[in-house]
């Protein structure tokens, strides 16, 4: 009884370290208005609004979608607020897709956002549950040991992460909305940048951004004038606990299971061959080779070979993060939905300078928590 669902509108803000020209309301509207214009719809056409963002401490307003109900065009309509850690942007897209696929609504507006300049994200991420062990290290401190374990396990060359950092920032030069614009970036520059959490250098880390992303999701019988929909062909989400004896944080089972379900539902037997382009959540450079293995694009221990051979570059056989990815723009709550949105833009042929020629099937991926929350979707130019 599942209905078909398509992305018919995509909008995002110009992401930046501080969008001091906009209130929180203005930020979400900049993205939402663009998504509505793309879909050829007005606010009144929307049946329901689904909002996603990471912890409310990032802006200092508890459940801010309530005070933004008017700005979101949600008054008199259903308004849902999703929060699933760093994967939230992806999860938000999936909750909205389910409203359409479940036959509940015809046109749903999805908005995911973060205005990190309102507070200090690293400080927020260091706060701990009372009586729990303090980490006091932020996200980088948490993930650095996982990366060291991956390097040890795979024997990857030490400059694999540096190559990812340069590739994604060069891709970002082709994306007008990207936060970081570093035309002069070189491998030497990345190698010489400050070591923050060994082995993560400053330039191998995502920025802290203000930004929003919005999608219009539409049922098959409500496509209207949309000529280039991105059809949602498969979705999956998985979670696992943060820590227990035997848990593999480098290659988490939840990610493996999530991808397996995504491929099964999407009829994918060889992801590297079948998928044309993927937007993967890579907040620290080394997560590109790690996720290549977790998602089955490469054999265990060989993800780094894709990076080193140039396979993941814009002109490679498996382009990863053609938009510049999380390493170039990271409004945390929006970062997952941006991956989903960029995948949709690729199969609609609307990615502009960072378009992958002939992309017909694209993957969006998001993860969060201690590599324990996963949300993924496959979108296609062809109706399933």
């Amino acid at each position: 009884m599942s209905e078909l669902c398509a992305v018919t509108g995509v909008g995002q803000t110009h992401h930046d370290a501080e969008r001091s020209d906009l209130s929180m309301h203005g930020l979400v509207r900049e993205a939402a208005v663009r998504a509505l214009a793309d879909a050829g719809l007005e606010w009144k056409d929307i049946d329901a609004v689904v909002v996603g963002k990471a912890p409310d401490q990032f802006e200092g307003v508890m459940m801010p979608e309530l005070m933004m109900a008017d700005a979101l065009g949600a008054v008199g309509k259903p308004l849902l607020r999703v929060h699933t850690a760093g994967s939230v942007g992806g999860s938000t897209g999936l909750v909205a897709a389910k409203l359409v696929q479940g036959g509940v609504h015809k046109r749903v507006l999805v908005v995911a956002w973060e205005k990190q300049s309102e507070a200090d994200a690293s400080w927020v991420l260091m706060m701990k549950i009372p009586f729990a062990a303090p980490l006091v290290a932020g996200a980088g401190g948490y993930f650095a040991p996982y990366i060291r374990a991956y390097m040890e396990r795979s024997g990857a060359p030490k400059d694999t992460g540096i190559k990812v950092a340069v590739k994604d920032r060069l891709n970002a030069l082709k994306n007008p909305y990207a936060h970081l614009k570093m035309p002069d970036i070189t491998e030497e520059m990345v190698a010489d940048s400050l070591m923050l959490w060994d082995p993560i250098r400053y330039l191998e880390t995502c920025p802290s951004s203000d930004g929003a992303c919005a999608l219009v999701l539409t049922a098959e019988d409500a496509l209207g004038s949309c000529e280039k929909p991105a059809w949602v062909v498969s979705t999956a989400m998985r979670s696992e606990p943060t820590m227990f004896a035997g848990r593999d944080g480098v290659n988490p089972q939840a990610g493996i299971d999530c991808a397996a379900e995504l491929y099964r539902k999407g009829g994918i037997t060889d992801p590297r061959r079948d998928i044309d382009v993927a937007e993967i959540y890579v907040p620290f450079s080394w997560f590109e080779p790690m996720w290549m293995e977790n998602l089955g694009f490469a054999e265990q221990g060989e993800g780094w070979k894709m990076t080193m051979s140039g396979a993941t570059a814009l002109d490679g056989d498996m382009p990863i993060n053609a938009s510049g990815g999380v390493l170039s723009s990271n409004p945390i709550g929006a970062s997952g939905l941006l991956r989903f949105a960029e995948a949709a833009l690729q199969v609609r042929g609307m990615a502009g300078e960072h378009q992958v020629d002939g992309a017909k099937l694209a993957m969006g991926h998001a993860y969060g928590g201690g590599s324990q929350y996963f949300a993924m979707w496959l979108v296609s130019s062809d109706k399933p």
Partner: protein
Amino acid sequence: MRDVAVVSFAQAPNLRSDRERNEVEIVMPVVREALDSVGLEQSDIGFTVSGSCDYLTGVPFSFVMALDAVGAWPPIEESHVEMDGAWALYEAWVRLQHGDIDAALIYSFGKTSLTDLDKVMSCQLDPYTLMPLWPGAISLAGLQASAMLAAGTVSEADMAAVASHSREAAQGTPEIPEAEGPADVDDLLSRPRVAHPLREHDIAPATDGAAAIVLVAGDRAAEVCDKPAWISGIDHRVDTHAPGNRDLTTCPSARMAGERADVGRSHIEVAEVYAPFSHQELLLASELGLGDGVDVNPSGGALAGHTFMVAGLARIGEAARRIHDGTATRVLGHATAGPCLQQNLVCVMEAAR
């Protein structure tokens, strides 16, 4: 839509301060009880979803640790809303419409004793114009009650009667072990005001707690439960935020959600409405069209014990329980969020499929 029923409900006692347990320890036995009572295991559950609030613990991602309570291994399909658990239940109901899974687990928790709930509620307000005044939920509810008194839609005696009924109903229940003692209307009206025109009895006491519900779709529901509470209508709507821009004597979003959930199609026997203030129960009853002959908040309601983030899910559970025990055939559960009933959800359940 696919037929979906509430087949089980469990709730931790609403305690003013559950000093000996953290959130995971409060949630875990509740989830266990909800599953055990219908003979299901985590492996039978196709979708798990929760509701909670980072501002209660004061740390980000406070819901992550609760994954330990549901046994998320092997990894599970799971989601979370930063909303009362009633909206988590809505998400689960949507998920069950897809037809590929038959059972969903919903839980929510709130440990308000870690903080000052009234102060924290100020952080929910517009940060530019309203939050800096730190009005709190109680003061704003006082403005709403004043507006209703001025409009003549309620009297202070009506409000005290709601409180008196709530106290009496909650006496001796395991859910509200610390219920305030019974008091008649004259007694309550002789007591001092806290925030004009509200007296202590008009304001729900903040408590710690958790609740869990299992939803099952189709024929499977009747296999695991003798008397499933079939969801015949569920809807939620939101109003504009700023209390100064609203007619606080009305609640358009509750009215609209009630209409969409088809409350008025036939008689409602029992209604559990989430009203943390006495006058709000009267306003909601009016907007939802709950006339004479409707048993409103027979559990004592949130006014007897208010676990923030849980109270809405618990209202749906308390209403469903009346179908499970055969004492009602058509019931209503309601949830609210935001200042002065800004956002509302209505879930109508019936004994007949």
